[in-house]
């Protein structure tokens, strides 16, 4: 969430009309299962309506269970099968450079996603083609669907692996807004090779009962009590929270 807020808040500037602009900067959520966070970000920016949020995963909704570009042009590509969004982002970066569009492309990958072989095919190709207009960000929360990465399939030494594949690798605290901004600046100012920002994060950061807890990986079912506790944990005052809830419900 902090990464998405920083990307869309500072790095990428989009308005609704930009869907027709081939030269726009693009963001791909390669870890497509995290799309509720993406949809919330779009709603906060006015790219979609807040009222559409409750239709998430419902029949007929453009807010599909994984991002679908045909329904939502800002998804840039349909994702949901890990590894593919990253490759598609590489295609966008290559296509943009080939046509002199000047756009930058960002892709957010999960840590478990890095176990897909396609990710490393893609990583090899991005550095081979010298795609400095590409920035990958790894949401490194150390948890995947069933358990900790280390127990499922170890990823370390992660930065070493990316560097060995020809990438500029930057490790940061993924909840430090200044660190995210600085890393994005560094990526933008890197010539000749792509940059990966390995963002160390805590899953469910800021919500006490969700933090570092694998069961919330694939669940969005919240009771009213859960919501109240989450809002308290996030230090949202009641009036602000009520405004958001009203906005969503109405």
């Amino acid at each position, binding site marked *: 969430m902090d990464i998405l807020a920083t990307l869309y808040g500072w790095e990428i500037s989009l308005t609704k009309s930009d869907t027709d602009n081939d030269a726009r900067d693009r963001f791909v959520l390669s870890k497509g299962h995290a799309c509720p966070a993406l949809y919330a970000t779009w709603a906060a920016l006015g790219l979609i309506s807040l009222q559409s949020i409750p239709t998430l995963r419902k029949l007929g909704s453009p807010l599909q269970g994984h991002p679908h570009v045909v329904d939502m042009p800002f998804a840039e590509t*349909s994702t949901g099968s890990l590894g593919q969004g990253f*490759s598609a982002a590489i*295609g966008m*970066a*290559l296509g943009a450079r080939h046509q002199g569009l000047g756009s930058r492309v960002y892709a957010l990958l999960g840590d478990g996603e890095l176990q897909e072989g396609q990710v490393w095919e*893609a990583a090899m190709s991005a550095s081979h083609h010298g795609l400095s207009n590409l920035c990958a960000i790894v949401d490194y929360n150390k948890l995947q669907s069933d358990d900790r990465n280390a127990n499922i399939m170890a990823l370390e030494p992660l930065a070493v692996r990316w560097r060995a594949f020809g990438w500029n690798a930057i490790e940061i605290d993924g909840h430090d807004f200044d660190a995210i901004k600085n890393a994005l600046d560094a990526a933008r100012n890197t010539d000749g090779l792509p940059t990966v920002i390995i963002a160390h994060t805590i899953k469910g950061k800021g919500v006490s009962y969700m933090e570092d807890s694998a069961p919330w990986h694939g669940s969005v079912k919240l009771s009213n009590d859960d919501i109240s506790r989450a809002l308290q944990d996030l230090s949202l005052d009641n009036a602000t929270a009520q405004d958001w809830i009203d906005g969503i419900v109405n």
Partner: protein
Amino acid sequence: MASSTNALKVETAPQLIGSSGDSLREAFGKALSGLADQYKDVVVLDADIAGGTGVHHFRKSHPDRFFQFGIAEQNMMSVAGGMAATGLTPFVTTFAVFCLRAVEQARLSIAYSNRNVKIVASHPGLDVGPDGGSAQCLEDIAAFRAIPGMTVISPADPFEMQLATEAVIKHSGPVYMRTGRSPAERILPDTHQFEIGKATMLRDGRDVTIVACGVEVARACDAANTLEQDGISARVLNMATVKPIDRAALQTAALETGCFVTCEDHNIYGGLGSAVAEALAQSAPCPIEFIGVQDRFGESGEPDELADYYGLTGPYIAAAAKRAIARRNQQ
């Protein structure tokens, strides 16, 4: 190919013009290179087999629009989807069996994302020859046909390949097109026209309809010639577009001939034969015999030897036509 060479000698064959000595993959590569100046959005993606797929012609003529991805087809397929998102028309080229390796990427990053990507696969079927069963892709038409929105094309000769290449560029949307490894006879006339979704009748007939695609079209013509000598009048339909299939041509043929043989260098499950059967079952059910690989894998050998060994040549097609006619007559 012995069968099509025989066909060339028969004067009643459908305007046979002689051999160009070209394979379908070479014809594709030359056509794409020749069309590239006219269609400037076209780019080519290769996975270290440009020499085998025919796009070495494009690499030579338009090196700035040729992109190398190494031996990594899954990434290449999804990258093509991303390149199309920026307004380009990517041609993804590799062997058919390696397209099969990246079917899921073609599904999500291309078809589900509705990207204007053209997947062109060389080395389909037993036509691959000596490389053997691992390389002889007999499942690609079935797999790609099952993806919503995917157009599936298998041209019959080098001339049709040339026409189909331009049609595929002009077509908006994802396409899977088969080329071929072995030298292919030129069987279609200069007046031949290719339109996506339209079958062409290479020969009219009243007793049975032979529907074929790819290298099997020449063999179907061969069979029709043989049948004529036995007093049987066979219609030959070149069904170069397997999806969307030309339902009107099939329905007309059903009404006018009443039985069918389908011919493909592919497993009999899921390919052209299945597509024909699906279409006819909904409109004009009638007897169909299926020429193709009978749910087996291939093996090493020369293409002509394999075609005979697996029952894909003219004599097998002619025999199947007689079975179809007998079944129709029993009804």
